[in-house]
């Protein structure tokens, strides 16, 4: 009886669109240079939020703060209800196993094959999976990005766009609840770019994942964004749907949609 009520409660929370990421007044600088200056935002469950901003405005810094690669100077970040500042190593790792992270630079391990690259997060986070299960998931995820035939190659043997797709596969392999994409379609041709955007929305609908997407590619933005946040001068300058923002009169907003 107890468990059912628990379940119902959890369902209720989920349906309630309780935010999975809450960022309040985040500040981050390097030396004298202030990059984020009081950035606040919420990511709702099942939502994809696109972050737009000029080069060097601190988009990558923002999502690195979320995953704990960079330490915020002040402000709070809550991910799945946990304040990441207060987590020790063990709990941080546990939390990270629910988050997929696509690096802007791909960050594939260049001394490992594609298979080993994809196995790495699985082995490390889950540990006790059977060999068959690991291999099955590697092939399945690679097939999703259209690269099953490259499984035994080295990253250096792949083109830039293929590397991006492998990196995407690695971010997705744990079926994370939250995915942080840093420029998922940059460097891809328009057709592959469209396929990747479609893959991203498919995953979002199928698993009800929540994602933050950093992108300059307006096709990708249009396809994937539920809401768009503009990062200007270290704060969230505007927040709204694609239609709301693209019809805005504000000069600062308009320039992104031209």
């Amino acid at each position, binding site marked *: 009886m107890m468990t059912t009520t628990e379940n119902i409660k959890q369902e209720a929370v989920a349906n309630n669109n309780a935010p999975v990421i809450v960022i309040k007044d985040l500040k981050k600088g390097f030396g004298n240079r202030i990059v984020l200056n009081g950035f606040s935002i919420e990511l709702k469950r099942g939502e994809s939020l696109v972050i737009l901003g000029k080069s060097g405005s601190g988009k990558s810094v923002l999502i*690195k703060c979320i*995953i704990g*690669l960079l330490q915020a100077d002040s402000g709070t970040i809550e991910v799945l209800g946990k304040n990441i500042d207060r987590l020790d*190593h063990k709990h941080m*790792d546990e939390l*990270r*196993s629910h*988050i997929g*992270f696509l*690096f802007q*630079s791909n*960050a*594939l*391990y*260049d*001394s490992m094959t594609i298979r080993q690259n994809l196995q*790495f*997060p699985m082995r*490390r*986070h889950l540990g006790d999976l059977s060999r068959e299960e690991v291999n099955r998931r590697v092939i399945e995820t690679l097939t999703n990005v259209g690269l099953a035939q490259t499984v035994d190659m080295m990253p250096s043997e792949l083109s830039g766009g293929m590397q991006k797709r492998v990196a995407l596969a690695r971010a997705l392999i744990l079926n994370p609840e939250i995915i942080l994409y840093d420029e998922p379609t940059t460097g891809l041709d328009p057709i592959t770019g469209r396929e990747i955007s479609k893959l991203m929305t498919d995953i979002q609908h199928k698993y009800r994942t929540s994602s933050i997407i950093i992108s300059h590619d307006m096709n990708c933005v249009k396809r994937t964004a539920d809401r768009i946040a503009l990062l200007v001068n270290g704060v969230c300058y505007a927040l709204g749907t694609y239609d709301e923002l693209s019809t805005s009169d504000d000069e600062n907003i308009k320039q992104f949609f031209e």
Partner: protein
Amino acid sequence: MKIATSIRSFLSETGSVARFVYRYLQELLSPRYEVRQFIRQCFIIGYNSLPLIGVTGFIMGLVLTMQLRPTLLTYGVVSKLPVMVSLAIVREIGPVISALIFAGKISSSMGAELGSMKVTEQIDAMEVSGTNPFKYLIVTRVLAATLMLPVLTIMSDAIGLYGSYLGVNIRDHTSLNLYFFEVFNTLHFGDVLPAIIKTFFFGFAIGIIGCYKGYNSSKGTEGVGRAANSAVVISSVAVFIIDLLAVQITDVLGLN
């Protein structure tokens, strides 16, 4: 003014190396232990350096013997050739030459490999994937270097002594048995043990400097190159400094 800044930067660098060493010791002792990676590194580090260290050891033994011979002949003590060469090889030349070769090969490759992993965000990617990169990359490498150099040095000593045996045989004739009988008659525990102990410190210094430089290298390919280069230079100097300290200590202990 310029001297002041360079002294300050030297001190702050020394401070951060000390913190790096402290962190190494901390992470070395606390679980989780990356046993597989450690074994892999031992294999890579040991196996890759063996040919080079073996060849140089052999040549040193041979050359040293051939060059010492005329001098000893002048004083009429040519029969002491095995004694002199074996002492020189085991106490000083074997450990130091092996360490220098090791520094050139291992320290630079650690600097370059870790440096490029750093700038391409592979180290960050490991951290995101539930791995402590310090344990996975640094602890395994430094520990492997610390333990492998003594093993390599013992092999290099043995090969060097064989080279010396061949050197003796170019002019004179001794049997291998007789040669090694002479050698083992001369060498004492007090000759071998301090020499082997200091190679642990050589190996540790080489590993930690290579890893420190790579792990802290600055962005860009230039930063990686600089990391590899300064790793070799600093670890080679460190070998000599440790050697200098070691000889003082053995002197105080009456082992010289």
